[in-house]
């Protein structure tokens, strides 16, 4: 018998009311946790995917679309850029590293990215099996792609034109899986990666090229195209020179990942803020509901409180009893909310994975969750303050004389 068991007994005695309060609080906390986990992970993954990429050069169009299509592989490209112009930019003295990228095909929803080995190195890709591609049509697949498509080492498959599943299959040239990457938590996980030449080879029929083993030399430079260039600056000054140089001197455009993702987050941010506000309203109503429940219960319990005083309880003991009851409700609701939030995040993660989007998981712990728990506990204690104060002031003799 102690404050905890007494509080629990009282919560049990009003089980329906207790359930309602716990549920309200749990829903509020779960919503906050869901937002916290999802935004933290999306933010983290987007930062990680864009890390070390200072500038993306693509065809003219929406700069955000350029970033979304070439870094995150979430949108369709704005178009292609001429090989010779791209080469010119890559050789610019302000450029430290330029990773070319040719997009346009997909396999079962996983995008096929024609690029160089630098792209793998950029994300520190490690192989779970096999090795890098060496000749055209050899591909490396990400861990998620492997899991979802069931492709294994040495498997052959046909890419289809377009980024969805609807495009015509490139029947002439099957790709072959040369390597499978370890899960790295980057965009590579959900891609099929190969050389730029492999992507060019898919369209070789139009150019009437029969032998694709040396396609880079077989094609005329004018016929070659990239979709984008991922640029790393040679020095901070490059940020002042290069974007202007590209935008003014070519038919291409330069987009800054940092700027565009910040813009994207500020757009998403409005929705997140609305949801967060909604969650706070839930938590606040839970607090109010706990307050009303405890306050009403005081009337039913005034004899109990007086009796506890006659049994030797100090006023402080009754104060603590009520505070503890509020805290206990809040903590049960809070912990349940955390569990629910994680479960919802995991569920959302599954839905996103199925939709080929940035994946999130419920199996992580964010330090800010302690604050959410503290918020719940605080709400419980504050809701119990006035009832606790009234319990503290119980007039024993007066109460008992009336009853």
């Amino acid at each position: 018998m102690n404050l905890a068991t007494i509080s629990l007994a009282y919560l049990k005695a009003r089980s329906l009311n207790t359930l309602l309060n716990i549920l309200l609080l749990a829903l509020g906390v779960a919503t906050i946790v869901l937002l916290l986990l999802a935004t933290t992970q999306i933010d983290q993954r987007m930062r990680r995917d864009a890390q070390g990429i200072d500038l993306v050069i693509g065809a003219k169009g929406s700069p955000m679309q350029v970033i979304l299509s070439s870094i995150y592989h979430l949108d369709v490209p704005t178009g292609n850029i001429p090989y010779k112009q791209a080469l010119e930019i890559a050789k610019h003295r302000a450029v430290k590293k330029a990773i070319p990228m040719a997009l346009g095909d997909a396999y079962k929803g996983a995008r096929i990215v024609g690029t160089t080995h630098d792209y793998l190195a950029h994300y520190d890709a490690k192989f779970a099996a096999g090795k890098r591609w060496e000749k055209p049509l050899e591909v490396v697949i990400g861990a998620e792609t492997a899991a979802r498509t069931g492709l294994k080492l040495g498997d052959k498959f046909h890419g289809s034109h377009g980024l969805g599943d609807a495009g015509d299959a490139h029947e002439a040239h099957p790709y072959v899986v040369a390597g499978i990457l370890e899960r790295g938590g980057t965009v590579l996980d959900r891609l099929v990666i190969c050389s730029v030449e492999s992507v060019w080879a898919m369209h070789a029929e139009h150019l009437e090229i029969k032998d694709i083993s040396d396609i880079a030399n077989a094609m005329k430079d004018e016929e070659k195209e990239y979709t984008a260039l991922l640029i790393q600056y040679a020095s901070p000054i490059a940020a002042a020179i290069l974007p202007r140089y590209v935008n003014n001197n070519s038919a291409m455009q330069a987009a800054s990942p940092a700027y565009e993702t910040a813009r994207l987050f500020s757009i998403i941010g409005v929705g997140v803020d609305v949801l967060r506000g909604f969650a706070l309203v839930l938590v606040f109503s839970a607090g109010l509901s706990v307050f009303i429940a405890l306050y009403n219960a005081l009337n039913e319990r005034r004899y109990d409180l007086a009796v506890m005083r006659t049994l030797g309880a100090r006023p402080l003991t009754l104060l603590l009893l009520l505070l503890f009851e509020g805290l206990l409700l809040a903590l049960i609701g809070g912990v349940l909310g955390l569990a629910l939030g994680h479960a919802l995040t995991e569920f959302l993660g599954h839905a996103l994975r199925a939709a080929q989007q940035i994946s999130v998981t419920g199996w992580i712990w964010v330090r800010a969750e302690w604050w959410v728990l503290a918020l719940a506990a605080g709400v419980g204690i504050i809701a119990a303050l006035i009832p606790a104060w009234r319990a503290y002031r119980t007039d024993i003799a007066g109460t008992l004389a009336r009853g």
Partner: protein
Amino acid sequence: MFAVRQLVHAYAGKDVLRVDEWLADQGAQWLMLGPSGSGKTTLLHVLAGILRPTAGQVSVADQDLMALPPSALDRFRGKHIGIVLQRLHLIDSLTVLNNLLLAQYLAGEPQDATRVRDVLASLDLGDKTNAYPHALSHGQAQRVAVARAVVNRPKLLLADEPTSNLDDTRCMQVLDLLLAQARTCGATLVIATHDQRIKSRVPNHYELTAQRHESRAVT
């Protein structure tokens, strides 16, 4: 054992209780008699240390209650004074066992389930240990209330109108119970009552009169 001297309690400007002197020995058994409105409950509350009178001296077990700071008085009450309230007021959310453990916990005594079971068994409540108060008959509930009052072996056992609304047989049973339990603990017993049926069973009487707020001891 307890001594009340020159006690006055006023409520809303009027004296509701006046006691010149009332002395009781350890283990003595008293009836506090008087018509309703004579201040029986008030005096009982003063003896129990849950009401500070306007003026006067109250000491229980050689302890001047008026001199104790509030929290020490709470502790003293829990340890040394047992009260059976008129309406019993068991805690409905707790089992019989926990009602008694609560008395030990709130008095700051070690929680002793064996002692609790012994007391319940002595009151023929052995099979009601895990029952909730609402499942008890009135007689059982009253016995639980007595058990809760004596579980800490009080030096002073107070009962407020324990026999009102009971038929003659029940009335005597309850009285016997209180007398026996008080004897077992060696506690001084004070029963506040206006029930004339039990007058002859308790040796010491203290009468309060309502009209003139005067009182006299009849031994």
